[in-house]
C-alpha cells in the first residue's frame, strides 16, 4: 500500500515537476504565449508557411526575417523562389526552428498544431495567420503582417499599391464567359474562394455556384459536363503520375477544354493571398479578352 501510494504520487507529481523546472529555467513562462507576447519590433523572425513567407519577405526590414519554409524555394509553388533563396530554409519542424532562436515565429492556421504548441511551450511567440479566402482578406493580411513585424507604415503603402492596381484591373464586361475551376480529383473552387474571386474580377462567371458548390468541393464529372462551361481552368500537373490528376485528361474535360484559348492552367500566383494574385487576375483578364475577340 505504502509503495503503491508513493508510485501514484510520483506519477502525478513528476510531469508538473519537470514543467516547473521548465518555467524556472532558461525558458520563458508559457502563460503569455500568443502573438501579443511578441516584441513590438521582432528582430529574428521565422516564417513557416508558403503564404506567410511571401508577405514576410515583402514587408520585413532587411535582416529582420531569418528563415522561410522550404516550399518557398520551389519555383513550382512559389512566385518568390529567387528571393527565398537568400534566406535560411526551414521544414516546419519545431526543433530546427527553436535552434534558430527566433523572437517571433509566423505560422499559417494549417500549420501542424503540434509544432505550434511545442514552440509556444518552449516560450517562442507564434503568430498564426489565416489563409485568405477573398481579395479583401489580402489587404487584411498585409496589415496584420505589418503589425506583427512592427512595419505598419510599409504595410500601409503596400496595401495602397495593391488596391490601386486591383481597381485598375476591373473591366466593364458585357458578356461574362462561364468558367469552371477544376482540379485533381474533380475538386472545384466556388465563388467564395480566392480562386473564385480571381476569375470573378477578371470577368468570368463561375459555374460552381449554379451547380450547387458555392464554397467549392468535389464536383462529379457529370455535373461539369452538364454545366457545359465556356472554359475549364485547372492546376498544373505535378511531376510523377497520379490517378487523381488523370481526371483532367478524361475525354469529357478534354472536350470542354478544346476551345480557342486552349487549356488554361492556374499556377503559383493563385495559391496565396498576396499581391501576386494581381498577376493571376491580369492573365485571366487577357484570356477573357482573347475569348471575346474570337
Amino acid at each position, binding site marked *: 500500500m505504502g509503495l503503491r501510494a508513493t508510485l501514484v504520487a510520483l506519477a502525478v507529481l513528476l510531469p508538473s515537476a519537470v514543467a516547473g523546472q521548465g518555467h524556472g529555467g532558461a525558458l520563458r513562462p508559457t502563460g503569455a504565449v500568443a502573438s501579443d507576447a511578441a516584441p513590438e519590433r521582432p528582430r529574428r523572425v521565422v516564417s513557416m508557411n508558403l503564404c506567410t513567407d511571401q508577405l514576410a519577405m515583402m514587408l520585413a526590414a532587411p535582416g529582420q526575417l531569418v528563415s522561410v519554409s522550404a516550399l518557398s524555394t520551389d519555383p513550382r509553388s512559389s512566385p518568390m523562389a529567387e528571393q527565398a533563396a537568400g534566406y535560411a530554409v526551414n521544414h516546419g519542424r519545431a526543433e530546427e526552428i527553436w535552434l534558430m532562436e527566433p523572437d517571433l515565429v509566423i505560422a499559417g492556421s494549417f500549420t501542424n498544431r503540434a509544432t505550434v504548441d511545442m514552440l509556444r511551450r518552449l516560450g517562442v511567440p507564434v503568430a498564426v495567420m489565416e489563409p485568405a479566402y477573398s481579395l479583401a482578406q489580402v489587404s487584411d493580411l498585409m496589415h496584420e503582417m505589418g503589425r506583427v513585424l512592427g512595419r505598419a507604415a510599409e504595410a500601409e503603402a503596400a496595401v495602397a499599391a495593391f488596391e490601386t492596381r486591383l481597381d485598375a484591373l476591373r473591366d466593364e464586361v458585357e458578356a461574362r464567359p462561364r468558367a469552371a475551376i477544376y482540379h*485533381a*480529383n*474533380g475538386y472545384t473552387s466556388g465563388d467564395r474562394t480566392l480562386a473564385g474571386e480571381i476569375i470573378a474580377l477578371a470577368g468570368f462567371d463561375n459555374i460552381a455556384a449554379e451547380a450547387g458548390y458555392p464554397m467549392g*468541393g*468535389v464536383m*462529379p*464529372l*457529370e*455535373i461539369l*459536363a*452538364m*454545366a*457545359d462551361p465556356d472554359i475549364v481552368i485547372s492546376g498544373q500537373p*505535378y*511531376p*510523377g*503520375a*497520379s*490517378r*487523381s*490528376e*488523370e*481526371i483532367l485528361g*478524361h*475525354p*469529357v474535360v478534354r*472536350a470542354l477544354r478544346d476551345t480557342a484559348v486552349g487549356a488554361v492552367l492556374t499556377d503559383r500566383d493563385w495559391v496565396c493571398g498576396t499581391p501576386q494574385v494581381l498577376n493571376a487576375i491580369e492573365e485571366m483578364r487577357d484570356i477573357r479578352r482573347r475569348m471575346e475577340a474570337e
Partner: protein
Amino acid sequence: MTRLYALLVPLVVVLCVVSLTTGPADVGMAESLRALFAGGEGPMTLVMREIRLPRMLLAVMIGGSLGLAGAAMQGYLRNPLAEPGLIGVSGSAALGAVIAIQTGLSAAFALALPLMALAGAFAAVLILLAMAGPRGGSLTLILAGIAISALAAALTSLVLNLSPNPFAANEIVFWMMGSLADRSMVHVWLALPFMALGWVIFGTVGRGLDALTLGEDAAASMGINLVRLQWGVVIATACVVGAGTAVAGAIGFVGLVVPHILRPFTGGRPGALLLASALGGAAMLLASDIAVRVILPGRDLKLGVLTALVGAPFFLHLVWKVRRERA
C-alpha cells in the same frame, strides 16, 4: 440450368440499364437512353457516352472476369477458398500497374499498364501454384496468399509514397479497394483485348475442370492434358485479373461469393459454373457500383468496401465449413 440463365441474363440486363441511368446529373431515364443511342449535340450525350457507358461496360467486364477467375481457380485447385482478390493475385496486379504508372512506362506506351498488371498477376498465380498446387491444402493456399497480398500491398504503398506527386500516396486506397469512378472508353479499350483473350481460354477449360472433379488420374485417363489445363487457368486468370485491376484497382470477394452461391444450381459441375459465375459476377459488380453511387453520390466510395461487406462473412462461413470437413 436453363432456368438459372433465364434468371441471370435478365438480371444483368436490368442492372446495366439501372447503371446507365444512375448518376449525379439529374436526367430522366428515357432522355438519357435517347442521348446514349441517338446522340446529339447536347452535353447529355457526352455524359452518357463518355462517363456512364464506360462505367457500365467496365462493371460488366470486370465483374464477369472476377466471377470466371474465381470459379476456374476453385475448380482447378478443388478448393472453395481460392479467389483472386483474397490470395494476392489482384494485389500483385495492382503492384504491376502502379509500377507501370509511376515509372512513366504507361505514359510512354499505353498498353504497358495492363501488361505490367498482367505480369504481376501471372507471377502471383505461379507462386501460389508452386506452393499450393492441386495437392496442397486450403491452409497452404490461404497462408501463401496472405504473404503475397501483404508483400504486394507493402510494395504498392512504398512505390506510391516514393512518388514525387503529392496525390499519389492518397491513392493507395484506390489500388487496394478499387473504383470505377471517372473511367473512360480509353480504359475499356485498354482492358478489353486481354480480357477477351482470357475469356476465350476460360471457354476451353470447362471440360477439363469437370473431369478433374474425379481426380487427376481419372481426368488424365479421360484424355485431359493436365499441363495444358493448368497453364490455361493460370494464363487466363492473369489476363482477366491483370487487365481489370489495371483500370479499376483490386476488387475482392466477387470471385468468392458468386461461385459459392451459384454452385448448387449447376449440379456441382465446375465447367457449367464458369458461365454462370461470369453472369453472376457481372451482376454483383454492377449492383455494387450502383450502390456506391446511391449511398454516397458526391464521394467516391470504393467498390471493395461493399464487396468485402458482403464477401467477408461468406469467407468466414466457408472457412468454418472447410474446418468441419477436415475434422
